[in-house]
């Protein structure tokens, strides 16, 4: 019979480190999906998830058990991803001159017929990834959690450790930052 998360955690805290492996197996897919929202290279993604698990193991005694383990783990994951973004913010590109042909075609289609530009197109996905990479770390985090993952402000506050008013302020600034980037994109491409 499969044990619950709480049972595995209790065993790990008693010194049975091997009981941590079922938790790693169970939650790694979720962590990889989260890390892939913030990093592009597979090596970076794996480093992020590995760091989350090492932190989780060493901080496991601080898990009180009044919320599901998954929530506690996701808080660690989001904060680790944010640290990653802050550590790599110098790598952000600052122009739209190197758009691929499908990206340019998608934008042209949007200009010609805004409603017909498909949201499921690969070019749109690449374009939004490019746009998100140019946002500041707090803006990228808040846009991802609020607009893409569709989380509430309260949830974001819990995940990030920011206050609710700070999340609202950062969300407002993030939307403004994104619109500014889009305006620059429009200007550079003469749309």
């Amino acid at each position, binding site marked *: 019979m499969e044990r619950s998360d709480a049972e595995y955690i209790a065993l790990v805290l008693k010194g049975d*480190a091997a009981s941590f492996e079922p938790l790693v197996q169970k939650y790694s897919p979720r962590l990889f*999906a989260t890390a892939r929202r913030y990093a592009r290279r597979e090596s970076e993604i794996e480093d992020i*998830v590995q760091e989350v698990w090492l932190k989780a193991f060493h901080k496991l005694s601080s898990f009180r058990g009044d919320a599901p383990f998954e929530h506690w783990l996701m808080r660690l994951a989001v904060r680790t991803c944010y640290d990653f973004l802050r550590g790599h913010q110098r790598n952000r590109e600052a122009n739209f001159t190197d758009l691929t042909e499908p990206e340019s075609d998608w934008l042209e289609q949007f200009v010609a017929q805004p409603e017909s530009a498909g949201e499921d197109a690969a070019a*749109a996905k690449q*374009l939004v990834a490019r*746009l998100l990479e140019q946002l500041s770390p707090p803006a990228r985090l808040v846009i991802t959690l609020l*607009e893409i993952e569709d989380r509430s402000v309260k949830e974001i506050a819990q995940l990030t450790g920011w206050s609710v008013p700070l999340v609202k302020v950062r969300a407002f600034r993030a939307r403004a930052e994104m619109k500014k980037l889009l305006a620059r994109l429009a200007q550079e491409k003469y749309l």
Partner: protein
Amino acid sequence: MKLELLMQKLLAAARANPPADRVPYKFEQRIMARLKEQPALDLAALWARALWRAVAPCAVVAVLIGLLSFAGNGSNPASNPAGETPDFSQHFESVMLADVGEPNEDVW
């Protein structure tokens, strides 16, 4: 140019394409191996870390005591009816080293 609509379209594109949850081959084993590699509790490292953390507060205390000592030397002798100049550094040294030095009646 409808920037708001463009933003909504792009965000919808991101929502429609969630990232893969694929886990690299033998990732769990690598994590468990990393955890086993790490020392359980390194007391020497903990002690060294605590000592390094104590450096700044100790330096602050030393500077404060030095400043108080100089301030004591410069106080007004007229305030002392016995005519002795209150010397903080002398008093401090006497108190701190009372048990270390030879018994001396002048200390107390």
